[in-house]
């Protein structure tokens, strides 16, 4: 039997030790010896017993709060090891970007249709009715003239670092919006994809109409495959979130969202890496003086690399231990 003073000393002692170990980081628990661990667990169990009694026997609100807060510290300490295991699993999940994309090919396909469909439609529409371009395009694109054979894109080499970083941050922002707007049941994601698709298609259509195909494609090709693929994947990540809201199955919507969230985040983070690569190419390679065949070479090489990555990477790992259990 403990006196009140001993009991209070046990509570505060446990709370202070738990806080100190928590502050020292998740691995500090492993450095304790057996006796210290045993004492922590004994104190925690005594404390949680006190908490249970305090609730069921109707102790003062302050006492319940006090015990509860000490118990939270103890719980965070003793169960914090779950986090270590989980973060190892999360790291493996992030490494398996290609696997996540393969598992959600439907979302990628939907996203590609929503992006390239309007792009092709507006390209064709501008060919048939050139006046449409005046509605679809901003003024700076109407007299956009990047093209002379020797300098395909008019970014002076001095400005290239700035342009590259502007492109990277702008593109990543677009993918973050496409991803987050998935939470509007996909409406926002769809609107964003269609809007960007129309923009791309009508710029291309307008320039093609004015006989600047070579300049246009020469400019787009080096970074285009990487950049457009990344936009489609971000749309796919958005549609994954949307699917949890529209068809949660037997789960609650919030639970379904949480379940799909990890893989959607993996895809979104992968997109960001892709866009950094694309932005560097767009800022430095696309505006450089390399000739047309070399540009086709860069395009083919990037397509081949991404195809190899998305169809091949992480496939030979056998069973998929990080897949959430189906229940």
């Amino acid at each position, binding site marked *: *039997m*403990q*006196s*009140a*003073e*001993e*009991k*209070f000393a046990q*509570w*505060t002692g446990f*709370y202070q030790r738990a806080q100190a170990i928590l502050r020292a980081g998740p691995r500090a628990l492993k450095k304790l010896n057996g006796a210290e661990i045993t004492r922590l667990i004994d104190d925690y169990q005594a404390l*949680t017993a*006190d908490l249970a*009694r*305090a*609730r069921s*026997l*109707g*102790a*003062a*609100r*302050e*006492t*319940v*709060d*006090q*015990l509860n*807060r000490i118990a*939270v510290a103890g*719980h*965070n300490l003793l*169960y*914090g090891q*779950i*986090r270590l295991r989980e*973060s190892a699993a*999360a790291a493996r999940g992030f490494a398996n970007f290609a696997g996540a994309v393969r598992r959600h090919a439907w979302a990628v396909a939907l996203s590609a249709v929503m992006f390239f469909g309007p792009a092709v439609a507006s390209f064709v529409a501008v060919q048939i009715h050139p006046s449409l371009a005046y509605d679809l395009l901003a003024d700076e694109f109407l007299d956009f003239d990047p093209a002379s054979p020797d300098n395909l894109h008019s970014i002076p080499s*001095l400005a290239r*670092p*700035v342009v590259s*970083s502007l492109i*990277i*941050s702008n593109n*990543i*922002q677009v993918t*973050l*919006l496409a991803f987050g*707007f998935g*939470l*509007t049941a996909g409406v*926002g994601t769809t609107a964003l994809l269609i809007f960007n698709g129309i923009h791309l298609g009508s710029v291309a259509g307008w320039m093609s109409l004015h006989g600047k195909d070579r300049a246009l494609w020469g400019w787009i090709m080096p970074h285009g495959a990487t950049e457009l693929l990344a936009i489609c994947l971000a749309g796919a990540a958005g549609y994954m*979130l949307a699917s949890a809201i529209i068809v949660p199955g037997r789960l609650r919507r*919030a639970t379904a969202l*949480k379940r799909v*969230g*990890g893989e*959607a*985040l993996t895809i*979104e*983070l992968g997109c960001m890496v892709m866009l950094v690569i694309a932005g560097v190419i767009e800022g430095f390679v696309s505006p450089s003086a390399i000739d047309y065949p070399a540009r086709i070479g860069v395009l083919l090489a990037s397509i081949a690399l991404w195809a190899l990555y998305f169809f091949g990477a992480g496939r030979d790992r056998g069973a998929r231990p990080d897949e959430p259990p189906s229940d």
Partner: protein
Amino acid sequence: MDERVFISTPDHVTLEFELAGPGSRFSAYVIDFIFSVVLIVIVALALYASGAIVSLRSLLGAAKSGARSASWILALLVLIVFLINWGYYVLFEGLNKGSTPGKKRVGIRVIRQDGLPIGLPEAALRNLVRAADMLPPPSYILGGLVMHFDPQGRRLGDMVAGTCVIVEKFDLAAQGASGAAWASRVEQGRSREALTLPRGAISPQQIGLIERYLARRHQLSEERRAQLAWQITEPLLALLGQDHDGVARRADRGAYCEALLLQVIELTQTKTPSITIAEKTPPPASLF
């Protein structure tokens, strides 16, 4: 939304958290917004200063190389501003157990729904989808509506990440030792016992009331503290053998009553009186 959320742990302990309301979350947001703007200004000034040094050096050396590094510095600024815009919450919450400077100031924190502190993956998820909660930007109407109807007060980002925002304020010292006194009495099986004194008994409810008062007394104003002490002690004065009118007229009535209450609690814990209860006096002559 409710005010509290309960989390059951695997060892059947129920942990209780007070949810942070929209008001405190919004004020934390405002503080963080100001803080991130200040961060951006500091970075811009630092880069501007380094740019000035670069251009000074370019006067001495080749002008072209100076302009080139100025361009790189500007590129760096663009990337850093972008990183602060989107990464502020991810990094602070992810590396600081769900707390940002604003949240810390307001006294709230993000936790996982299993009660553990959040890490980088949760922080990234709940903040990278922020654009949806902000709709129509920058009003946060969608996120606010979802928060209002969710029992755990989660915005959309919280649902994706499996997190909620709770009130963090806690001071072990301020809570005091009266809880431990109660708990040790329970352990000895005396929680439901009345305290029997020579002149009668103090009921368990009255003891509970005294304990609650003693636990909270430091947070009360002087006036209120004295007043409550008197109200609680007054019915017990006869039992404690005190002269009602004498105590009522004392200048230090509040402090005196509080001392009496402390003695009562001490009695319930030790059952070996360290104070001398006044001699039992003959009961007043009954009218009947």
